[in-house]
């Protein structure tokens, strides 16, 4: 099965870097349009949500396919999510707020959609920091509890997007529906019987 093969991780790394490569290429080839700052902000935001949804899909995939190996990619996908959200945040802080923390904080306090987005970003920081093996060992059972924050983060992220749209709710709506399906999957009664305890039996 290719999921377990030695080259699957390098391939996933390459796939995760493709959006970045695309944006860098576009940046050097006049491909970001008339408002490159807005384009980069939107693209990195979109990719953050997409990576977060993919990361959250791995556990359901394990259960639906009976392949435990999906979980091998969870940490790297989570960290790529953090990478894209960091780009998203930095572009906004630098270009929209000219690196002025006061102006940034005013925006965070005053604009609910930014409050949500910034909270989601802040909550992702501890998850990124505790994603290495040493921290997993050190935190023990608490690690799992801490990383359940991701369920809150996806909700904040989707609301952040829904709340900033002017009239066309199609794209954030699709993300919201996928997020709700993935979250619903984690609520006990919806799970398929037996899926939780023995994911590799089917």
């Amino acid at each position, binding site marked *: 099965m290719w999921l377990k093969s030695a080259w699957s991780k390098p391939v996933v790394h390459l796939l995760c870097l493709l959006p970045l490569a695309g944006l860098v290429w576009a940046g050097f080839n006049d491909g970001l*349009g008339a408002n490159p700052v807005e384009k980069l902000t939107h693209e990195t935001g979109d990719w953050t949500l997409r990576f977060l949804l993919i990361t959250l899909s791995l556990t359901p995939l394990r259960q639906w396919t009976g392949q435990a190996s999906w979980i091998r990619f969870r940490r790297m996908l989570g960290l790529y999510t953090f990478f894209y959200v960091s780009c998203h945040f930095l572009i906004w802080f630098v270009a929209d707020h000219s690196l002025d923390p006061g102006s940034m904080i005013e925006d965070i306090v005053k604009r609910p959609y930014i409050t949500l987005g910034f909270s989601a970003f802040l909550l992702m920081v501890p998850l990124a920091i505790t994603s290495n093996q040493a921290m997993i060992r050190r935190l023990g059972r608490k690690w799992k509890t801490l990383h359940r924050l991701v369920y809150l983060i996806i909700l904040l992220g989707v609301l952040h997007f829904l709340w900033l749209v002017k*009239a066309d709710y199609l794209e954030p709506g699709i993300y919201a529906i996928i997020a709700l399906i993935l979250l619903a999957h984690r609520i006990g009664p919806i799970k398929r019987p037996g899926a939780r305890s023995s994911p590799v039996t089917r």
Partner: protein
Amino acid sequence: MIRIKKRWEIPESEVTPEPLYRRRREFMQAAGTIGGAMLLNPWAAAQAALQIDDYQRGVVTLDEELTEEADATSYNNFYEFGTDKEDPKRNSKRFKTDDWTIEVSGECAKPGTYDFEALMKPFPIEERIYRLRCVEAWSMVIPWLGVPLGSILAGFKPTSKAKYVAFRTLYDPVRMPGQQRSVLNWPYREGLTIAEAMHPLTIMSVGMYGKTIPNQNGAPIRLVVPWKYGFKSIKSIVGIEFTETQPQTSWNMAAPSEYGFYSNVNPEVDHPRWSQKRERRIGEIFKRDTLMFNGYAEEVAELYDDLDLTVNF
């Protein structure tokens, strides 16, 4: 900063000793290699952005750098052709404006359906360089070619009951595929008070950057009201109605708490969800301060002397 030659204060005879606006056949000769079908109707070929040779240069100018033409014609909010900024250019390529007519109705002595070309023919075309400030906090500087709206409206002889002017965009989901989704309540509608409509800064634009107006920018004819957020400057107009009561406007219908009837550019009144204090000029990275009435306070502030702009946003 803004220099307006107040030609409306000068007798017509002094301003235009001879017709500056050559007739369409003449400027078509200058266009040279353009195909036969287009010769019959140059406005219909707006997608080819024909050269307009004769216009009064610099009727209103601005000491600010013009936005690149390529940016102004590829970064557009024109939901009739899609909601992404690049959609209008891509989805309006085959949009034809042949035999364009404008229906004039309501409180006026001369209602009727007017042929667009015939309607515009008597008026000299003026170049007016205006700031354009979008409600999304970006801005451009665009050299429009157009005619004061007041001159056009006067020809319809509005009655004393005409307190407002309502405008309507074409509704044709086949030609305007964005209308196949009900993102807004089509057709797109906008409106002005009669005083705003008659204000000398308000124009009907038929061109930009020395050419006929591209489809994605609102061919063949659009409104330009430089002191209001861009969505007030309705595109591809097919209807003008004089009304006694305030007309409905599309964004106000979509979100009344966010988009008022007036929608004057005002850095002091935020959009409920985002700040209007600053804007990103297209072509720049960092934001600049937004000016009251988009920098046209001297010309238009008096229109709103009696209004609380926080309530009438």
